[in-house]
């Protein structure tokens, strides 16, 4: 009797917490009215006042509305201001949140086409990304939802199996284990990449990549705005970068940015 009561209490507590959490906006948006700012920023963009648009979109993003559309609009404004690196940075952030948005994909492809550095990527990662379509087509929240649903169904089937031990239920259970683990791992990797990303982008127009973290070190090669790289290590205002074709070097931190969401 006591156990049942405990279960019920837990259930109701969880339910109440869920209701409380899910029905409220993700974060309070501060004192400035984001809707007003958003409309003003859109108007500024339409009137080709891209600097104002950038400032206002940045304000909205800084207020905590970590939203794909805001990053997309910000990317557009930066691109119109000829800041390709910043534009791509925001498009990549938007891609983390609205990966299936057609406009975003179109503009991202356009912006990528404007980059000057041609780097031939090695390795299996691009091919693997194409194969794991769910990873690239769903954002972290959608992946997490799928995982939670699958997790719910899995435990449900496991509970049913306690009373209804048939072979078909066991088979379903194994299939569900597979998908639950797959989705769980995908969500974990996605979240890791989203919040602890090791990807970076060149935001300076033309940057020198040196052999060490000092201005006196040899210039190994040059990179241009919008080039993506792997963020290896940080040291005293310098970042060690790795290009996907294997080239390595050090660049000053102020000319690059990490592609990461701050939630």
């Amino acid at each position, binding site marked *: 009797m006591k156990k049942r009561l405990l279960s019920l209490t837990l259930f109701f507590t969880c339910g109440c917490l869920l209701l409380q959490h*899910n029905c409220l*906006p993700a974060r309070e948006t501060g004192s400035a009215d984001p809707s007003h700012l958003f409309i003003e920023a859109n108007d500024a963009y339409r009137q080709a006042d891209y600097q104002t648009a950038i400032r206002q979109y940045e304000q909205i993003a800084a207020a905590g509305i970590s939203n794909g559309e805001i990053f997309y609009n910000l990317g557009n404004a930066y691109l119109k201001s000829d800041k390709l690196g910043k534009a791509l940075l925001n498009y990549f952030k938007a891609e983390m949140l609205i990966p299936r948005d057609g406009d975003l994909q179109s503009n991202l492809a356009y912006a990528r086409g404007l980059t000057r550095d041609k780097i031939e990527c090695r390795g299996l990662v691009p091919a693997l990304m194409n194969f794991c379509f769910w990873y690239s087509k769903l954002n972290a929240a959608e992946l997490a939802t799928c995982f939670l649903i699958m997790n719910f169904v899995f435990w449900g089937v496991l509970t049913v199996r*306690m*009373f209804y031990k048939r072979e078909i239920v066991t088979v379903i259970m194994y299939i569900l284990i597979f998908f639950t683990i797959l989705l769980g791992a995908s969500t974990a990797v996605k979240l890791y990449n989203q919040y602890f990303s090791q990807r970076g982008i060149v935001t300076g127009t033309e940057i020198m990549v040196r052999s060490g973290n000092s201005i006196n070190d040899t210039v190994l090669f040059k990179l241009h705005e919008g080039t993506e790289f792997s963020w290896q290590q940080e040291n005293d205002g310098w970042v060690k970068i790795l290009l996907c074709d294997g080239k390595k070097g050090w660049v000053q931190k102020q000319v690059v940015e990490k592609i990461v969401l701050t939630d």
Partner: protein
Amino acid sequence: MRNLKKPFLLFIQILLIALAAGAAGASEITVIATVDKNEATLDDYIILKISVQGTREEPALPALPDFRIQSRGSSSQFRIINGQMSSAVEYNYILYPQKAGTFTIGPFAVKHKGSKVKSKPITVKISKTTPQAKQSEDIFVVAEVDNENPYHYEEIIYRFKFYRRVKVANARLTESPAFEGFLTEDLGKEKEYQKVINGQTYLVTELRQALFPTKTGVLKIEPSTLQCDVVVKKRGRRRGFFDDPFFDDSFFGFSETVPKILRTSPITVMVKTLPTAGKPAGFKNLVGEFSLNGKLSTRKLEVGESVTLTLTLAGIGNLKNQQTLDIQGLQNFKVYDDKPVFETQLKGGKVGGKLVLKKALVPLTEGQLQIPPVTVSYFNPSSGSYTSLKAGPYLLDVVPSSDDEKFQVVESVKKSGIKQEVKILGHDILPVHTSLEALSARRLRPLSLTAALFFLLPVIGFVCTFSIKRSRERLEQDRGLIRFKQAHKRFSKALPLIKSALTQDDPLFYQRASKALKDFIGDKLNIAGSALTPKELERRLPEYNVPAETVKAVTDILEFFDSGQFGFTKHSVEEREAVFKSMKKMINSLNRKIKRK
């Protein structure tokens, strides 16, 4: 070891002397220029050799505007004659004459220690080519056109002929004219035939190309150059048995090959403009001889059905200039042009072809409709006049449509027929998202308490279900436990019956109450309850940590029921009620206090 030392020292001495002599000799610089012949024709070439002795400096070539110069590399020679060492480098050039006349080649100078060493100049005489001179040779090339004075766009044939009456090997065209100002059309593979000139039989290889001048005025066709190796017999060798053409091959060593470069003369073509007098309207620079045929697929059809008009323009000339054929003044029809089919044909050694154009015509009204004639104009160079060709007119009997669906079918074909590829006219990004939906942040945050709870909820549910199931299974397996757990429940079930007998003077009250109490204690202690006596209770209950006063109360109540049941004493209803209430209290107390062992 001693034996070897003497010759080694001697060798070193000789080498030093030789080098000293060589150094003395090297101070003399000479430049000698020679040519293989001083008289040549425009079809010939002159081999120029400049031998520089005493230095490796390359001689500077003076400007030779009357010759085209081709370098043939250099060779080095090193000699020791009477202790005098000399080194020489020979530079070879081929000079192709461009003009007839007498020319001076050189002097050629080499810079050495601030001074210039010059060769003697050479005088060469270049004369124009005479056909007799050509034909007296064993091997020569000729380039010609069949008409040096064509009209604009008139087809002319360029022929390159390679004559030979000796064996040659490795023949290859090293230079071909660019045919600037001409459209060219290949006339197939080379032809090989024999020709007799001045009683000498020559083997001739002929290459042909059709040329269409696209400019008027003077057009020049540059010379073609052919390189080959001529097989010649070695002199002073008597072959006897081997005097057979089979052994002419240099492989057997009875002959040798001499490289030869043959060059054609440049050709000048004077292209006439087409006469303006009589030039028809819509003339599309079609020059040659052509014919036009038209064929209609049917003469009778319904409104909405299509009829195919096949127009065939064939002949010799620049047919590619005519890509379409228009029907001027066509009314009451919709016209859909098929892709033109062009077929190149060779007729009488000239290039021509056939252009087939199909037009689908859909009548829009009924009645007797006329397709106006299709006209094509061309210039005939042989007659020097313009000619107009005509196909049609054609009369069509168009009857009303019997089936509306047919018209629909034609319409659908029309729609697919006018599709065009989308042309990209500019590049830009797509606009910003303006919907205020963009500001809504109602989404599951994966790293939130909500997500964690969603994750844990089914696990908790499973664990609860599992534990409930396990406890039930345990209950089912343990009879004593079931009795222990259900003791109070069974007692509660018996209460209404006891209560019903309470108010009546019924011995059943005592019986039922006694049984319920004994059963409860029996269930709790997992023993047979009906056989329990107060004395046994006094012994057993303390084992379950039941306080002595509770044990006494239990035995008192039990004795009360026994006295009433077996008729020792009579109790009032109030007494019975009081005992009943105290029994209920005591049972609740016992239910809490008795723990299962």
